């Protein structure tokens, strides 16, 4: 504990006789330049995400499983990691059963230690929900949980994300205020704004650095 008390002691000493600066946070500066009419939010998010190699689709809230099946078939993918307990997981299973899809649905149903190698080597794609989107920066917001663990959106080479059009917010400030983030965050919260990329060699942009090589966003319109 000596390092702790030494550091804090030195800092307190240096601040002796001073008063803490007031909180002059001006939220206008981070909200006003980033406001859009509701109809323009989808377009803004879409164009920003497409600019960084994200594939964006927009379908009705009921038709999306067919689109997902089609996306897999076109890429010739043989499996898809999904969360069977979620609403979208159930819808997907139902569609797979009724239409007899060739690709296999996998579930993330045990701790990572029990299937790390299989997750890294055999899973070809994953599908997760999102808790919202951000128009200003073209971002998806994910709060991984037991059903859709953290690595689901990171390890498989193709990540499909479902985003409700009605849950796209103007900017990060509005989203975190509306969702009351300051009151409590999950163990891991994520903003995802495209497939993994790097420009570390000669500043040449290359996609698929360590995370997904492809990010596919399926925007769901109200039924």
């Amino acid at each position, binding site marked *: 504990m000596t*390092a702790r008390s*030494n*550091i*804090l002691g*030195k*800092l*307190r*000493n240096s*601040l002796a006789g001073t*008063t*803490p*600066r007031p*909180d*002059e*946070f*001006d939220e206008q*500066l*981070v909200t006003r*330049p980033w406001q859009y009419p509701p109809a323009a939010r989808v377009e803004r998010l879409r164009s920003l995400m497409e600019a960084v190699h994200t594939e964006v689709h927009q379908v009705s809230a009921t038709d999306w499983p067919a689109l997902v099946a089609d996306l897999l078939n076109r890429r010739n993918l043989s499996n898809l990691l999904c969360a069977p307990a979620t609403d979208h997981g159930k819808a997907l299973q139902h569609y797979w059963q009724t239409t007899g899809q060739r690709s296999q649905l996998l579930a*993330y149903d*045990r*701790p*990572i230690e029990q299937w790390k*190698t299989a997750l*890294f080597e055999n899973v070809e794609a994953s599908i997760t929900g999102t808790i919202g989107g951000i128009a*200003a*920066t*073209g*971002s998806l917001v994910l709060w*991984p949980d*037991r059903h859709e*663990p*953290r*690595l689901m959106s*990171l390890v498989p080479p193709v990540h499909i994300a479902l985003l409700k059009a009605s849950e796209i917010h103007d*900017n*990060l400030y509005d989203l975190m205020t509306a969702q009351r983030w*300051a009151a*409590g*965050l999950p*163990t*891991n919260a*994520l*903003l*995802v*704004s495209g*497939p*993994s*990329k*790097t420009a*570390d*060699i*000669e*500043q*040449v942009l*290359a996609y*698929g*650095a*360590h*995370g997904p090589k492809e990010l596919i966003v399926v925007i769901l319109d109200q039924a």
Partner: protein
Amino acid sequence: MSQRIPVTELAADFRSRATTALADDQLRTNFRTAMDSLIKKRADAFPDEQEREGLRELGNRIKARALSRLPDLLEQLEAKLTENGVTVHWAETVEQANRIVHGIIEARNGRQVVKGKSMVSEEMEMNDYLARRDIECLESDMGEYIVQLDGEKPSHIIMPAIHKNARQVSRLFSEKLDEPATDDVNELIQTGRRTLRRKFMEADVGVSGVNFAIAETGTLLLVENEGNGRMSTTVPPVHIAVTGIEKVVQNLRDVVPLLSLLTRSALGQPITTYVNLISGPRKPEELDGPEEVHLVLLDNGRSGAFADAQMRQTLNCIRCGACMNHCPVYTRVGGHTYGEVYPGPIGKIITPHMAGLNQVPDHPGASSLCGACGEVCPVKIPIPQLLQRLRQENVRNPAEPQVVKGGGSKYSRTERMIWQGWQLLNTRPALYGLFLRAATRLRRLTPKNAGPWTRNHSAPVPARRSLHELADAHLRQRGDQ
């Protein structure tokens, strides 16, 4: 023409390293190209000057507010993180920090560590420390990985391998990884991906830095484009984050403008591909994420900078690298010339507090004071003023107490006396007149050798008559006197 400057083979001082770097055409082309592109990207990311300036002012205020209550915020951060299940450690020196990290790894019998990008771990020279204890510590950021593979140090805080071109990376990969030579950047990146994916799976411990530590919620925020940061902090059973004590901010909302300033200033991106907010280890019901999360808070001279109200502003830094991207000196000599962990303008003002000003006595002077660094700094650190201040600290009389660690190493009694004489001359009109008379009348006796000046210039010779005398004569002729 040398293609590579391994740090170990570098000459001992800034000046000779600069001379070598300036003669390296390849190095200069690599930097010039990269910096020009980063300057343009930043400019494009801030199309509205008013918006940019408002945000910079807000960024400055947020950091100033955090620093004005730093000890309280650090305690709040510790309390919140502890409540969230994260273990917080404190280290005054890099040695202490390394010992803490090593202890955590040892407790798990760890042998393999995979590291996301972290400049604080560079400060600690963690890779070497762990390697000496038979623990492999592998860099996973593509740029850092390339640099580590070649036994080098990063030459830029955001783009560690910016001094190399694709051909140089290709040669390195075929040499060290037995890969077929290719200039195709995509193929080179896929080689890195394949190699490192295996390492993420196998690693016992993941190490990362922190971009912002949020006291309000007990959250560590990390930004990145590659996904290696998320891999390092999620796949291994233990995650150790190392960070400087200045990275703490008060409220969650404070990171909204800081994040925007950081990614736009650094890379010209509206946001990075991933923003990773970590608030705790895996919960019992969760299926992945590390079982243990540790945060090591490192001082390493920061509290020394904090003690001086002017120098304290160096702790505003959010490590975006914009100051080096815009620096005419950095662009020409490259990052390795500085010989320290943090190169460029920001390096010049923070290194003295870590290593001691006497270790880097040439740094404050290696600036034209053009002001570009201060103008682009997203948190408005007055870098040029701090460089001037360090020049003064550099020549402070060693007999006086030093304000900056290692200050006064450039003090010279002769130089001090010359300046005192200069002051005398310029504050006594009679003496000044006498001096001018002597200098003009005895102009033929002016020394031909004026030190470094005459190496590249012809020696200055005073005019026949001083301006004073000419003006005098002119006025008399007009009969005004």
